[in-house]
């Protein structure tokens, strides 16, 4: 009671232009002394109207558009989209193509997690660890460049398979690279257990198990709170149905930023195991259907489907509805950051200002993926957020 009388709350704007956040997101934080009492998250700064653009383009153009929703998880987006198209069109890629897709998928998971570990170190002021982690990440980007030709936005997927093959020489190179990276990641794990880092990460941004289930958070954010969900194990796609024994789902129970960071570090080790198994078991065969992709595109009939993959940040869901004439009637993208960002408010209440960048980084936000608009009635000047009941009713009507 004394606190409420002594200190007036101070509203601090954080973003959208802020050195801690590489992407625009707006927090309006209400602070009393140094303790946060309220958080208002405003998205929408990266809204580029991709879903409406997709309706006026053909399937191949949409494939390249969808890849650029996010630079960090681009392969996840294209995999999800091509999976949906292949399901509608009844096209079955060869097993070699599926294995190569999974290989790039896991390499992308490694690059994304190393990226995030570096950003977490940068947020707590530990520049040296940031430099080390990103130096290790360069190995993965080198592999991408040798296999696909680009460090980011690899365009590996096409309808019916993949575009680049792997030679024996490349397989050896990947194995050597993995050995080096294992050593670096072990060292990074040790440094993350340093006393000053622990003081900053532990006990910060706690999201309990029940709250995590209620808000439907996904990915390492959920696994750090003890919720056991992983699309690779639960609904296997690509080559994961044959790789079940090579990885295990990493869970932690302490539900704070430290737990989420640990989940990601151990997922790096699991990814290394998966990649080694893939390289061992890589089957022979063609990498694509051999039919020109323009012909394939014209063969895809009218239809709709839902496709899910486990992106580095969590569950990524696509609803694709084709119109049978090489175009799309509707594309709906539900990225993992949307539910994760909702988890920020309960995490931040009661923390200090110094914890905001740490917590925001620990859910691994990818703002480019997560922008939606609220319907604002200009005459009345109010924002109308459609609630759950109304949404279900509308969905049932149509």
């Amino acid at each position, binding site marked *: 009671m004394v606190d409420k009388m002594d200190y007036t709350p101070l509203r601090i704007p954080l973003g959208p232009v802020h050195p801690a956040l590489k992407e625009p997101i707006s927090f309006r934080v209400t602070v009393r002394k140094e303790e946060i009492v309220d958080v208002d998250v405003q998205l929408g700064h990266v809204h580029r109207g991709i879903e409406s653009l997709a309706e006026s383009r053909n399937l191949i153009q949409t494939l390249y558009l969808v890849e650029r929703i996010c630079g960090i998880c681009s392969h996840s987006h294209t995999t999800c989209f091509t999976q949906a198209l292949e399901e509608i069109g009844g096209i079955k890629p060869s097993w070699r193509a599926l294995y190569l897709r999974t290989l790039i998928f896991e390499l992308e998971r490694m690059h994304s997690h190393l990226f995030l570990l570096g950003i977490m170190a940068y947020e707590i002021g530990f520049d040296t660890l940031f430099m080390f982690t990103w*130096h290790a990440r360069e190995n993965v980007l080198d592999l991408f460049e040798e296999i696909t030709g680009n460090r980011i936005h690899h365009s590996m997927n096409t309808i019916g398979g993949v575009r680049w093959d792997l030679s024996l020489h490349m397989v050896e190179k990947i194995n050597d690279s993995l050995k080096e990276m294992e050593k670096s990641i072990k060292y990074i794990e040790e440094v993350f257990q340093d006393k000053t880092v622990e003081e900053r990460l532990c006990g910060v941004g706690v999201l309990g198990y029940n709250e995590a289930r209620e808000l439907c958070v996904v990915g390492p954010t959920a696994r750090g709170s003890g919720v056991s969900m992983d699309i690779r194990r639960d609904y296997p796609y690509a080559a994961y149905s044959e790789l079940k024994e090579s990885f295990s789902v990493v869970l932690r129970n302490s539900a704070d930023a430290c737990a989420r960071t640990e989940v990601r570090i151990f997922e790096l080790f699991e990814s290394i195991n998966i990649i080694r198994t893939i390289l061992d078991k890589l089957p022979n065969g063609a990498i694509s259907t051999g039919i020109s992709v323009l012909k394939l595109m014209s063969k895809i009939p009218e239809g709709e489907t839902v496709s899910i993959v486990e992106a580095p940040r969590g569950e990524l869901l696509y609803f694709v509805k084709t119109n049978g004439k090489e175009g799309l009637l509707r594309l709906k993208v539900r990225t993992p950051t949307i539910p994760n960002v909702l988890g920020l408010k309960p995490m931040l209440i009661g923390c200090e200002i110094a914890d*905001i960048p740490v917590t925001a980084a620990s859910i691994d936000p990818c703002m480019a993926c997560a922008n939606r608009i609220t319907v604002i009635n200009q005459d009345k000047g109010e924002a109308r957020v459609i609630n759950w009941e109304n949404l279900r009713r509308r969905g049932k009507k149509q």
Partner: protein
Amino acid sequence: MNTIAILLAMVPVVFFISLLFEGIDRKIHARMQKRIGPPIIQPFYDFIKLFNKERIVPVTASSGIFTATPIIAAAAAILGASIPLASLTAETSVVGDLILILYLLAMSSVMVMVGGSSSGNPYGAIGFSRKMTMLIAYEMPMLISIVSVSLNCFSLAYYDIVSTQIRTKSLLAFTRPSMAVAAITFLLCIPATADVVPFDISEAKTEIIHGPLVEYGGPYLALVKLAKAASNFALTFLAMGLFFHLPALLGGYASVGLGAICLCLVTTLILLLLTITVPRTIFARLKIGQAFKFYWLIPLASSIMAVVLSILEL
């Protein structure tokens, strides 16, 4: 009058050496991170470039305080660094004693904070409140350790303590247990005074966008950076002179003069690398509560122990 002339002559020397030391600090920091790093004279390029930029004063700032405080901060820091250097060159006490030097250095950091908070930016206000908290945390152990040194040497003048070491041909930190404890306390307080990780909480870049420095640009920023560089140099030079005056070990004519001053500067550089560069590279930033707790537990206790041991003549 002679001493005042030497003091004024030291001002450009301090300007040059403090920026050079900042360059060496950045180079070593980069090398420790497996990078190449900027050339050693980079801070000079930064300073000249900043002086030639547009002068912007935000509309929400109180322009008198905003524009005056960087000048006062830089002047105070350079003066605080010139006094010990002039004392060593003139081989006598110049102008003031330790209390004056520490006051000038404290005033320099407070002036930067006041200027930053007068800019009207909420980040400046947060940085200001954080710095005030840190000031309470680290100033007390530092002052108490100076008290224990003066109890030991029966004087508060800088040159008296240096000449005690020259006379007894020993480094003060190694003469008595009380002085060793006082030296350790003083060195522990330097990272917080210099605003480096793990204690750069008031100027955290990723949390509050440089805190009080967020609205400073152009010439004002150049002066603020100069104030910081001079203040770092002054602190480590003070630590060197009070506790580790290396030329004292040589004795006779080698303990004074130009060669001795060069040896002092080299020792200052080593202390700067130990207390500012190394913590900056190997630690993460602490939160304000944790830093406050640390300073009230360890350095404060050790400084009080140093005083008690001095009184007991140990």
